[in-house]
C-alpha cells in the first residue's frame, strides 16, 4: 500500500519550517498546485488539526485530509532535522511528517487503510528509538520507510 504512494519527488530531505503553519505550507508546496488550491488544502488540513494534533508523539506527525483539490490519493513525506513544534500530543518536536491527501470521492476504505499503514509504519519507526533524519537522497527515505512496512 505505502509502496504505491511513496514518490521520490514528493519527499523533503530537510524542512525549513519551525511552526505548524509553516510545516503544512512547506509540505503542500511540494505539490504542483496553483495558489488558490494550495490555500484550500491548507485550510482543510488546519481544520483537522484544530480537532486535535495529528502529531502522534515521539517525533512523528500525520497531517491528513480529503480534499477536492487533488485528483488522486497523494502522500508527501518531510524530514526535519531540527524538528518542528507541531503541538504534538507529547509536546515533542516533530522530525518526520507523512501528509496524506485523498479525493472526496475516494472510497473511504482506501484512504483509511493508507492512514492505517502510515500509523503502523510510524509505530515501527518509533519502536526503534531515535528517528533517522540524516538522508542523502529521497530514495534512501523511501527505503527507510519501506523497511518498516511489515505486512
Amino acid at each position, binding site marked *: 500500500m505505502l509502496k504505491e504512494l511513496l514518490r521520490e519527488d514528493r519527499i523533503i530531505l530537510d524542512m525549513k519550517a519551525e511552526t505548524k503553519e509553516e510545516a503544512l505550507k512547506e509540505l503542500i508546496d511540494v505539490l504542483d498546485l496553483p495558489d488558490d488550491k494550495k490555500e484550500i488544502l491548507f485550510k482543510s488540513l488546519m481544520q483537522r488539526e*484544530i480537532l486535535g494534533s495529528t502529531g*502522534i508523539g515521539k517525533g512523528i506527525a500525520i497531517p491528513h*485530509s*480529503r480534499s477536492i483539490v487533488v485528483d488522486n490519493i497523494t502522500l508527501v513525506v518531510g524530514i526535519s532535522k531540527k524538528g518542528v513544534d507541531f503541538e504534538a500530543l507529547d509536546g515533542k518536536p516533530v522530525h518526520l511528517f507523512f501528509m496524506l491527501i485523498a479525493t*472526496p470521492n475516494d472510497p473511504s476504505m482506501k484512504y*483509511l487503510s493508507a492512514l492505517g499503514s502510515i500509523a503502523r509504519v510510524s509505530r515501527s519507526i518509533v519502536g526503534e528509538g531515535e528517528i533517522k533524519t540524516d538522508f542523502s537522497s529521497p530514495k534512501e527515505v523511501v527505503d527507510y520507510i519501506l523497511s518498516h512496512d511489515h505486512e
Partner: protein
Amino acid sequence: MSNKEFLKKLYFLQDLDLLIQQVEDPQYTEKTGLQVSPDKVEELKRKRKEIAQELRKANPMMYQRYEMLRRKYGRGITRVVNRMCTNCFAALPASIIPTDEKIITCPNCSIILIWLE
C-alpha cells in the same frame, strides 16, 4: 452572494462534512489510533451549521440539492476534470460550458459541478 462565492463556500462546507464524517467513523480511531477532542468536534459542527445557514439563505434550491445528494452519494459537489464529472465519470455534453452566470449540475447524476483550473 455571487455564484462563484456560493460554490467556494459550498465545497468548504463539504470539506467540513467529510471531516466530521471521518472523525466520527469508529474505524478511524481503531485503524489509526488518532484522537480528536469531542468538544472541538461540537465546535466544528456549530461552525458547519452557520455556513449551512448562510448557503441556504443565498440559494435555497442549490443548498437543498447539496443535502439531498450528500445523503445519496456522500457528497454533493464535485470537480470537472477533463470535461468529465468526477462523481459518475460521465463525459459532459459539449453544450455545457463553465460560466459564472449560473450553477451547473451534471446531466447524468445531478451533482453540483465546479471547475478548478
